[in-house]
C-alpha cells in the first residue's frame, strides 16, 4: 500500500511541522496547490492555522474548492484536516464575517462561548471525553490528550457525523469529526507528541 500522502498547501499555516510529523508517522508527504494532484491523490491532508475567512479566501484564490469537493465527495479520497483545515470542511464559518466553507460536512464554525470558557483561545492540552468509534484513535488510551489552540469550533453538525468532544470550562468543544472518508481534528496532531503521531499513522496506514 502506498504511504504517499498529498498535503494541500494554500499558503497559510505551519507546513514545516506538519511535514516533519507526517514523515515521523512513516509517510511520504508531497506538497501541492494544484487541482490535478489533489484529484490524483491516494490520501489528502489539509492542515491550517489562522482565521476561517483567510482560509476560505485562499481556497478561492487557488481555485481549489471544487477540486477538493470532487476528490472527497466524488472520488471518495480519504482526507484528514487539522484545526482550520478541519473547520473549512464545514458549510459556513462566522469568524470576522460570514464565509462559505468547502461544504464537506453539514455544519458551521462558530466562536466558543467566552462566558462558558472564561479564557480564549482554548490553548493547551485537553483530553477527549470519548473516542468510541473514531477509527484514527484506535489503540490510544481512553481519554487521550492532544494540543489545542483555537477560539472557534465546528458546531450544529448533522447527527450522521461522528464526533469526539472535550470539555473546556462549561463549553463542550468539538475536538474531532469523522464521516465515511472524511476525518478532522480541531487539535494539532503535529504538536501532540506521541498521541498525535499515532493519529497520523492510523490515517496513513488504515484510512
Amino acid at each position, binding site marked *: 500500500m502506498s504511504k504517499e500522502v498529498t498535503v494541500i498547501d494554500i499558503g497559510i499555516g505551519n507546513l*514545516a*511541522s506538519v511535514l516533519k*510529523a507526517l514523515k515521523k508517522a512513516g509517510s511520504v508527504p508531497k506538497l501541492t496547490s494544484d487541482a490535478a494532484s489533489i484529484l490524483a491523490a491516494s490520501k489528502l491532508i489539509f492542515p491550517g492555522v*489562522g482565521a476561517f475567512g483567510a482560509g476560505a479566501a485562499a481556497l478561492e484564490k487557488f481555485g481549489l474548492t471544487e477540486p477538493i469537493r470532487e476528490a472527497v465527495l466524488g472520488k471518495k479520497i480519504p482526507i484528514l484536516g487539522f484545526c482550520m483545515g478541519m473547520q473549512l470542511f464545514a458549510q459556513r464559518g462566522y469568524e470576522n464575517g460570514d464565509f462559505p466553507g468547502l461544504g464537506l460536512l453539514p455544519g458551521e464554525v462558530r466562536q466558543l462561548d467566552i462566558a462558558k470558557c472564561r479564557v480564549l483561545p482554548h490553548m493547551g*492540552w485537553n*483530553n477527549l471525553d470519548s473516542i468510541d468509534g473514531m477509527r484514527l484513535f484506535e489503540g490510544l488510551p481512553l481519554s487521550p490528550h492532544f494540543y489545542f*489552540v483555537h477560539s472557534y469550533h465546528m458546531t450544529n453538525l448533522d447527527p450522521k457525523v461522528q464526533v469526539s468532544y472535550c*470539555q473546556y470550562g462549561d463549553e463542550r468543544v468539538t475536538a474531532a469529526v469523522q464521516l465515511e472518508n472524511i476525518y478532522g481534528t480541531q487539535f494539532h496532531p503535529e*504538536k501532540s507528541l506521541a498521541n498525535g*503521531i499515532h493519529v497520523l499513522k492510523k490515517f496513513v496506514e488504515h484510512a
Partner: protein
Amino acid sequence: MLKHRVLPLVLLTGYNVVKSINFSTYRTLGNPITICRIYESRGVDELVLLDIRATVERRGPSLDIIRDISGECFMPLTIGGGITDLEQVRKILRAGADKVAVNSAAVENPQLVADIAREFGSQCCVVSIDAKQTGAGQYEVYTHGGKQPTGKSPVDWAREAEALGAGEILLNSIDRDGAMQGYDIELLKSVADVVSIPVVAAGGAGEPRHFSQVFREAHVSAVAAASIYHFTSFTPMEVKQELDSCGIAVRI
C-alpha cells in the same frame, strides 16, 4: 478538561543557553539543541526559547537554531527575542516555530501585535512583558532586557495587547528572575484577572510548591520556569506530580 501547562523556558544569548539573575549576571549552561532534546524526550507541554540579548544586539533569533530544534520537536514551540517585523515572523514560523513572542518592539510599536495577529492569527502572537516593582502594588514595564523603563503599567499594557489581538501574555517579574523564591503573585494576579487570554507566569520558581501557589492564587493558565530545571534536580514531571497531588489538573 483543559490542563494547566508547565513550560520549560530556555534563555539564549545567540547560540548559548544561559540563565540570568535579576536580568543580569548570566551563567552559560550549554547547547540549546542538547537541552531541547532532553525536554523533547521528557514530553514537556511546550517549549519557550527567548534570546535575551537579541534586542540590544539589534538582531533576531537564530533561524538555524529554530530549524534544528523544531526538527525533532513534536510539541508547540514559542520563539522570542529581537523580533521587530512581519517578515522576521514569517521566517521564524517557516523555520518551525508555532508562536512568536514580541516584547520591546511591541511596546515601541503596538501595531506590530495587530499586524502579527491579522497576518498569522492571534494563536501565534505572544506578548512577553517584563515588569519591575516600583512601589507597594506598583509595577512598571521594562524593555531591552529589563534595562529600559517605559512608563507603562503591566495591567494597562496587557489589556492593550489583548485588544490588539495578542493570543497569550508571558509575564515575567524582573525582581524575581533567577531568585528561586517564588512567583510574584500580586503582579501575576493583577494581570490575569483583567484579561481573557491565557497568562503564563514567569520569574521566581525554585521549588514545586511555588507552582501550585501561583496556579491557585494568581489564576494563570501556565507556568514557565528555567532556573529550577537547570539548578535543582526537579524535572517538569516532578512539578506536575506536585500539582496533581494538590488537585491542579495537569497532563501526566
